[in-house]
């Protein structure tokens, strides 16, 4: 029995990656949930908004690198992030002006809005690929590892290594700051409060003098900021590929629905729940159990519930279970 090594292996292969992934999903789900709360439709284009935002950040990163600007130990992409957010905000505001606003004025049913967002999704997807191509792009520079597996082994004398990448810490810290800023905004500013009011009761908000177009615009800007940040963190952590963000849509939707659509806290909890489930169900526990099992009893198989190719099935299964048993999500959201 070697509890310490088992714990380190678990930390290294499950906890740390899942936490970083969870933070990325949480940011993505916050965007979806916010748009749902205010505009009252599930925005299928959110994944591709993330892709577009990340593509903009990558372009800006290249620009900054060419100018010789760097953020020292941090990835240059962090400096490029505000530029990417601004570009993405312009795109989504433009989309709202040209597409969504028309349907909003028509008081189109939510299903119609969803279909419209699917159309927007295809356009954005094409736009992103047109701008930056379909290939995988790595754009993380700066310090790669805060703790490397080799150093860890040497320092602790354990046989199991622990690696902590700079991007993982960056992801969690940035996501934490974003979430803090968002909640501060929603709870302490007049505009944030009017967004909550609008989400709670649209008719009353209008009759209380709240300008709907303004609330909608602010919502899009925040959604763009969340999407770009989430997409960039995901791209730094793994790699950027336009199509990956389309695939992320499922876990992100699952996270926001599990947490209760329209409920920001729920989106965060949902993000981590999905990430932990996905990573732990697709992780081969052979090694961890090998450390824990008595001599001679080590498992022979991989002890993996589901191979990684099927990781999206996890989100899907969780989604189905939640919809069946608690359609408003774990935290009370609007029912879907």
């Amino acid at each position, binding site marked *: 029995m070697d509890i310490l090594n088992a714990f380190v292996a678990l930390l290294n292969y499950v906890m740390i990656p899942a936490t970083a992934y969870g933070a990325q999903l949480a940011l993505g789900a916050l965007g979806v949930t916010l748009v749902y709360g205010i505009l009252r439709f599930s925005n299928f284009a959110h994944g591709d908004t993330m892709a577009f935002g990340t593509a903009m950040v990558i372009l800006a990163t290249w620009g900054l690198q060419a100018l010789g600007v760097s953020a020292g130990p941090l990835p240059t992409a962090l400096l490029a992030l505000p530029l990417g957010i601004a570009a993405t905000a312009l795109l989504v505001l433009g989309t709202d002006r040209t597409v969504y606003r028309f349907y909003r004025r028509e008081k189109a049913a939510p299903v119609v809005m969803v279909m419209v967002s699917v159309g927007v999704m295809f356009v954005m997807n094409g736009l992103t690929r047109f701008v930056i191509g379909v290939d995988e792009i790595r754009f993380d520079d700066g310090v790669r590892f805060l703790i490397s597996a080799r150093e860890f082994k040497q320092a602790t004398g354990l046989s199991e290594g622990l690696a902590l990448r700079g991007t993982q810490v960056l992801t969690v810290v940035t996501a934490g700051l974003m979430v803090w800023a968002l909640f501060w905004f929603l709870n302490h*500013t*007049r505009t944030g409060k009017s967004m*909550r009011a609008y989400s709670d009761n649209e008719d*009353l908000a209008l*009759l209380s*003098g709240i300008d709907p177009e303004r609330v909608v615009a602010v919502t899009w800007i925040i959604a763009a900021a969340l999407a770009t940040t989430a997409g960039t963190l995901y791209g730094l952590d793994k790699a950027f590929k336009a199509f990956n963000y389309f695939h992320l849509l499922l876990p992100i939707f699952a996270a926001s629905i599990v947490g209760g659509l329209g409920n920001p806290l729920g989106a965060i909890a949902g993000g981590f729940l999905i990430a932990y489930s996905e990573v732990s169900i697709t992780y081969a526990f052979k090694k961890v159990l090998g450390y824990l099992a008595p001599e001679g009893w080590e498992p022979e198989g991989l002890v993996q519930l589901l191979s990684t190719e099927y990781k999206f099935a996890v989100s899907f299964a969780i989604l189905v279970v939640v919809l069946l048993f608690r359609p408003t999500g774990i935290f009370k959201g609007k029912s879907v």
Partner: protein
Amino acid sequence: MIRVENLHRHFGGFRAVDGASLEIQTGSITGLIGPNGAGKSTLFNVIAGVLKPTSGRVMMDGEEITGLAPHELFHKGLLRTFQIAHEFSSMTVRENLMMVPARQSGETLWNAWTARRRIAQEEAELLKKADEVLDFLTISHLRDELAGNLSGGQKKLLELGRTMMVDAKIVFLDEVGAGVNRTLLNTIGDAIVRLNKERGYTFCVIEHDMDFIARLCDPVIVMAEGKVLAQGSADHIMENEAVIEAYLGTGLKNKVVANG
């Protein structure tokens, strides 16, 4: 003054408001009565910008306001309450009231940071005002309750409270008294009279309780089937044969006179 000119609002082939014309004089407490389905709430919805009219015009102090959005009308000082009380259910009663005066300095993200002192001061004033309103309506003890948890009558009071948070010019009340007990109804009636006298609010009040209407309102407008049937003082209205037939019935007149 509000002037409604030959207003129509149709739902499909159904004429909910069918050529209504009326005037609400500045400084009055005008009553609007009529049988269920007469089109009273629909008329309110059109005036308040919730519904677009099929045809016709709405004027406010000589300026056309037909089809303006509710938030634009709000900033012109035109407020309304809902027949079925609306509230921000996930906010407390006090927060509900503090939500109302929507145009303030806390508006941009920029000055949310830079003008924090001024905003804090405004918030403090708002809070004081909200507490005064709650006192006035005798529901101070509910201030930290989530508005969604209030009873139907309490929500009605909150609706009235919303209109007291700003300096409104004209307030449309859609059955504020429905579901409210008699004592509270008197309180509401007193509140309306006081707001009218002390703060110069003009009111247009829909109410089925004829005692309430007779006590408060002059003139009274009677609607039936989307049209204005009669208009005049409460006494005058209660004498009107057409009104008695369409709405009051013969028994009621004697009762009100006996009470009055």
